[in-house]
């Protein structure tokens, strides 16, 4: 509360009633003009949007004037009444008047020193000579431009050479001749994340431009994909086997689980079911979770499942390690996680190595058949195609019938060096049986 003295009149102000309160409304005056009031006696009741407050008189005296009437809304700090502190009622003590206002300290009266007393205070005058001290950035700029700091006039504390001093010197004198001529606005540390390698013009400027064509260099990722795909074609004896799968039960199970998982932040896709069925089948057909090294086949204990993720310009295959340990929900979460981070380019280098089997999913873009290229050094890649409602022959109540079912194809490219068509077909049949027999309810 603030109150100030105007001749013999003490102002009663709308008090500060909390940090969030900017104004108050007069509910009731307890005193009327002419009434005697003691200091700290309630003079009026005020309401705010938060609380009701009693306003104490800042001083003893006679209420001289009411400025804000009952019902008026007054900003904090504005006067609402005046008290005549010189007035003398018969029994009142005159010396009680006026200055009993303990809360009248105005902010500017409190000469506040810095709370940083613990930090050494720099005195800008008469400080010791600091011209010999060189800060990291000044040393770096001086080294870069070959500047003799003795020649640079320091304008910092104690004559210290500041960054701006050395930059001004470089701009004016260009260092010692090794210096780069371009003016330096500010010079930054060399420690940066690596930027994509700049290609030399000679690499791309070979061909003459031809009307009607446009030439662009391949991105580094494009070049890597090109190399890996050709290498794989040269390395493996590619074959592709295809099964057709009725996804009705998977669709039903997905419908049951989807909402609950979504609430837990996990998007449940068909891919997760196919991945789960594949990983289970790999346990029964270890030759598909293997690599060919020379004349040996290396069988891997863990299924480190690669998931091909399409990017704007390219493709990356993050790996879900030890996928055999995951539940369906765990699989769905892991796929969503690596896919999101792949698209955000936030994968760690280790996360794209060590895969033992890969699943690709062009079906999400509507494709129905493909013959994928194996991701080396693996021996097979499974492809989930679009799930499309088709008229198919199903078991009717009496005999065969035509039913409408969500169908898909699962093509798998495999390496004929490591296995033969019978095993590939048996493996795919295992995956198909698992998907078509998925437990529901």
């Amino acid at each position, binding site marked *: 509360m603030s109150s100030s003295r105007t001749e013999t009149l003490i102002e009663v102000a709308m008090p500060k009633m909390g940090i969030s309160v900017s104004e108050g409304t007069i509910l009731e005056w307890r005193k009327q003009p002419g009434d005697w009031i003691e200091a700290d006696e309630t003079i009026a009741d005020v309401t705010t949007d938060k609380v009701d407050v009693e306003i104490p008189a800042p001083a003893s005296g006679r209420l001289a004037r009411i400025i804000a009437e009952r019902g008026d809304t007054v900003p904090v700090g504005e006067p609402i009444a005046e008290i005549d502190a010189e007035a003398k009622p018969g029994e009142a003590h005159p010396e009680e008047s006026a200055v009993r206002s303990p809360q009248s300290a105005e902010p500017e009266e409190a000469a*506040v020193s810095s709370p*940083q007393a613990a930090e050494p205070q720099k005195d*800008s005058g008469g400080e010791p000579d600091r011209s010999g001290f060189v*800060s990291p*950035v000044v040393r770096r700029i001086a080294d870069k431009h070959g500047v003799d700091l003795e020649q640079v006039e320091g304008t910092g504390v104690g004559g210290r050479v500041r960054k701006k001093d050395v930059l001004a010197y470089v701009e004016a004198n260009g260092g010692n001749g090794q210096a780069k001529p371009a003016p330096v606005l*500010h010079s*930054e540390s060399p420690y940066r994340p690596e930027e994509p390698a700049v290609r030399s013009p000679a690499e791309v400027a070979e061909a003459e431009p031809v009307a009607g064509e446009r030439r662009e260099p391949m991105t580094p990722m494009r070049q890597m994909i090109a190399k890996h795909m050709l290498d794989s074609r040269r390395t493996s004896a590619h074959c592709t086997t295809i099964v057709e799968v009725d996804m009705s039960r998977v669709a039903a199970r997905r419908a049951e689980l989807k909402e609950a998982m979504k*609430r*837990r932040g996990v998007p449940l896709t068909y891919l997760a079911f196919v991945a789960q069925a594949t990983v289970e089948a790999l346990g029964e057909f270890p030759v598909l979770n293997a690599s060919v090294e020379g004349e040996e086949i290396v069988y891997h204990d863990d299924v480190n499942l690669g998931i091909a993720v399409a990017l704007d310009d390219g493709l990356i295959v993050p790996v879900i390690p030890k996928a055999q340990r995951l539940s369906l929900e765990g699989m769905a979460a892991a796929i969503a996680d690596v896919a999101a981070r792949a698209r955000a380019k936030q994968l760690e280098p280790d996360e794209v190595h060590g895969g033992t089997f890969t699943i690709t999913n062009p079906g999400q873009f509507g494709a129905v058949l493909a013959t994928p290229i194996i991701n080396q050094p693996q021996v097979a890649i499974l492809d989930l195609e679009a799930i499309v409602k088709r008229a198919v022959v199903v078991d009717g109540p009496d005999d065969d019938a035509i039913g409408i079912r969500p169908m898909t194809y699962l093509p798998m490219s495999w390496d004929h060096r490591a296995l033969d068509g019978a095993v590939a077909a048996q493996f795919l049949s295992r995956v198909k049986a698992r998907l078509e027999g998925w437990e529901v309810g």
Partner: protein
Amino acid sequence: MAEMTYLEAISDGLREEMRRDESVLCIGEDIGAFGGAFKVTDGFIEEFGAGRVLDTPLAENAIIGTAVGAAAEGLRPVCEMQFADFISCGFDQLVNVAAKLHYRQGVAVPMVVRLPSGGGFSGGPFHSQNPEAWFLQSPGLRVVAPATADDAKGLLTAAIRDPNPVCYMEHKGLYRYVKGEVPEGEHSVELGRARVAREGEEMSVITYGSAVHLALDAAEELGEDIEVIDLRSLCPLDTDAILASARKTGKVLVAHEATQSCGVGAEVAALVAAEAFEDLDAPVRRLTAPDVPIPFSPPLEQAVLPQLDDMKEACRELLAY
């Protein structure tokens, strides 16, 4: 756009999200019929009903615990602490349950705890603290601290939509002091992104919350080429923005109203020292409250909390270095 106070922007953001998403609800003391101690939820119970604006007993542990359960089941509760200081009573549920549930069991806990913080009104040691650093030591929690009306709404929206538990530090001193243009309707500000509140070349003030306004006022009054970075999110911290500014100016003052030791200022100073050492032209300095409780006495409180003159003095020293 509409002009709103910081307080109105918080209300507006909360109301928008409750209208948009039925799973958003509020839990707190006196937030329903009374409309909240600071009136953030004034009128909410009339619009959304007592089922989504839950008045609770004076039991912060129950508020946070209820919210954790609701969030784990897919709702998006927004808890109100009447004062940030009172979160200590709900600490176990917050730091040991909410923060760790995803790590332990893979269960997302999308909840927000609104924490009216800060001093400057003689509220004394139990109603004035800035306890954000408590939460920064509890991995699993996110922490935001808006300084403007725009960010008050945008960060609250983002906090509600975030799948993690988020501590939302709302400074009481800004409630009605700060006004600004705020986008109407849905408005979200990405978590983890700092804002360049003022561009400059000579030094950087890296700050958040109420101290942003001290820094801007000091820069204006001094008329110097001072850059002011408003962190907005304390976890995750926008290290790129901090380092870019530090590398540009070479002089860093970290400022906040919270106490000094092991605070945000310490974290930022360590980051700058480790990653931008070769760009530094001066020691990294801090302007904070000293490590003491907040006094009731107005002159003592002013001595404890950083004031505009303190900010100007700290800037002058660093500029002169």
